[in-house]
């Protein structure tokens, strides 16, 4: 009986604990008042955020380096998380600049959007962004989502495009970041656009995805098209014939209230960024394990930006 009473007390106590933090709907929101006080619209350093993958970290370092070269106080905050997380950080002003991708942004704010032309997508992004956010010039550099398989799998099932997966996907395992499962351009999109439905899904992140594909625990993987692991492991990237993943030009997403300060420096970066340059730098950071900051500094100085 005594044990029963203590169990009830425990449950009651945990419920009380929940009520205590029940005042706010969003854990991130609680930190925003202090965040905006220290880095508000009236000056303060620019924080360049980065998502939880190496290219985003690299781009954040490039943006921050270019800003610093122009005498703007800038720091980086890499590895914030997935888009669902970091867009909130921008909106609550914990970060002011973020390297983004045109198509992904358009899809995020307009779930029904189907445009694929680079310029059209870029224009659409400007229309659907919240009032507090804007994008600067887009670069020609593009990094798209892609579905890749090993050379053996591609040969075995004669795979060239994602559409070829339709007949065999039921026997295959797909590995991708957890958020791929719910995104319109993720598993639902594969099913809707290509009729491709994988037998099972293994949610992993970062290098875990590459390892699982390489070691055979997964048959197909969602990897970025600029990822050096594709070439390093001889993976085959399946063609996105239906343009499910759209156009994904790299673009600086910035807060409107800080846009004027950072515009010149970041547009100069976008003018110099190319897909090849990104792929080359990612090889240095991911395969040769160089410090992203050093790789970014090298890019800036060779292009006269640092």
């Amino acid at each position, binding site marked *: 009986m005594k*044990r029963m009473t203590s*169990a009830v007390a*425990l*449950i009651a106590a*945990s419920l009380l604990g*929940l*009520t205590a*933090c*029940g*005042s*706010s*709907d*969003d*854990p991130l929101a609680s930190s925003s008042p202090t965040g905006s006080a220290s880095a508000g619209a009236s000056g303060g350093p620019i924080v360049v955020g980065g998502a939880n993958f190496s290219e985003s970290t690299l781009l954040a370092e490039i943006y921050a380096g270019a800003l610093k070269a122009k005498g703007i106080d800038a720091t980086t905050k890499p590895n914030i*998380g*997935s888009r*669902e*997380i970091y867009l*909130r950080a921008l909106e609550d002003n914990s970060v002011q600049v973020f390297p983004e991708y045109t198509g992904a942004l358009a899809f995020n704010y307009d779930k029904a959007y189907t445009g694929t032309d680079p310029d059209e997508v870029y224009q659409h992004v400007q229309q659907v962004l919240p009032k507090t956010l804007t994008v600067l010039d887009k670069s020609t550099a593009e990094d798209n989502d892609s579905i890749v398989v090993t050379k053996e799998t591609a040969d075995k099932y004669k795979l060239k495009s994602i559409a070829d997966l339709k007949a065999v996907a039921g026997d295959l395992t797909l*590995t991708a*970041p*957890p*958020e791929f*499962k*719910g995104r319109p351009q993720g598993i639902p999109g594969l099913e809707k656009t290509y009729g491709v439905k994988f037998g099972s899904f*293994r*949610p*992993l992140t970062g290098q*875990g995805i590459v*390892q*699982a594909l390489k*070691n*055979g*625990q997964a048959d197909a993987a969602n990897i970025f098209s600029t990822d050096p692991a594709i070439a390093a492991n001889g993976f085959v990237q399946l063609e996105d014939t239906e343009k499910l993943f759209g156009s994904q030009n790299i673009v600086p997403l910035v807060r409107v209230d800080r846009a004027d300060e950072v515009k010149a420096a970041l547009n100069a970066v976008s003018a110099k960024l190319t897909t090849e340059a990104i792929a080359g730098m990612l090889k240095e950071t991911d395969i040769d394990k160089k410090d992203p900051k050093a790789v970014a500094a090298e890019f800036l100085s060779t292009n006269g930006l640092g």
Partner: protein
Amino acid sequence: MINSIWAWFTDPVNWQGEDGIPHRTLQHLEYTAMAVLLAAVIAIPLGLWVGHTGRARWLVSLANSVRAVPTLGLLLAATLWLGAYIQSDLAFTLPSILVLGLLAIPPLLAGTYAGIEAVPPAARDAALGVGMTSGQVLRQVEVPNGLPLFMSGLRSAVLQVVATATVAAFVGLGGLGRFLIDGIALGDYPQTAGGAILVAVLAVVLDGVFALVQRGVVSPGLSGRRVGGRGKDSRSVSVEADRSSTDAPTPVAPA
């Protein structure tokens, strides 16, 4: 926040299919059961031997030092290492069970050993005195008398594993950890909180179940509960222990 968590719990979508709460809970219980079973196979015989012979007590301290191993770090390292050798999903399952099992060994070993060691020397001497063999002393005197401490070791092992089994989701497996990780990746905080609550509730419920099991397997003479006409005052340990061995022939089998 409370409202959105409640909405998550009451949404029928969250109770169906592979991602549903029942399936994830079942997976969580499977990982827990496998890990505790693995630990039991190692820790119980070892604990019985150490307790019975009084030899190699350092094994218990060694096992206790294992508690300091960072579970998540070990899991990721083991997955990375084993992944290159195993093609199937076992590359994720095996490291998870091993790492969780490692977590359950110290409390099980300590519980088994301490239970046996706490048996009053008088009871042991008496058993030897009436002509029992060493094996009979272990089975009929030491094990039944050691059950309360063994059961508390088992309960703390189960509790620790069930609370930690969320790490399996880090290497792409299921279980209740999926709600935590997917919830964070999607910025879906009600899902994260819901997963955390489920783990806590599951831990409390499991502990309750094992409390009942303990009540069932421990001799009434030891637990002090009233049996038949006999009251709490019957404290003659050796007599009770002897009696209980006939009541419960294989009391050591973990549930």
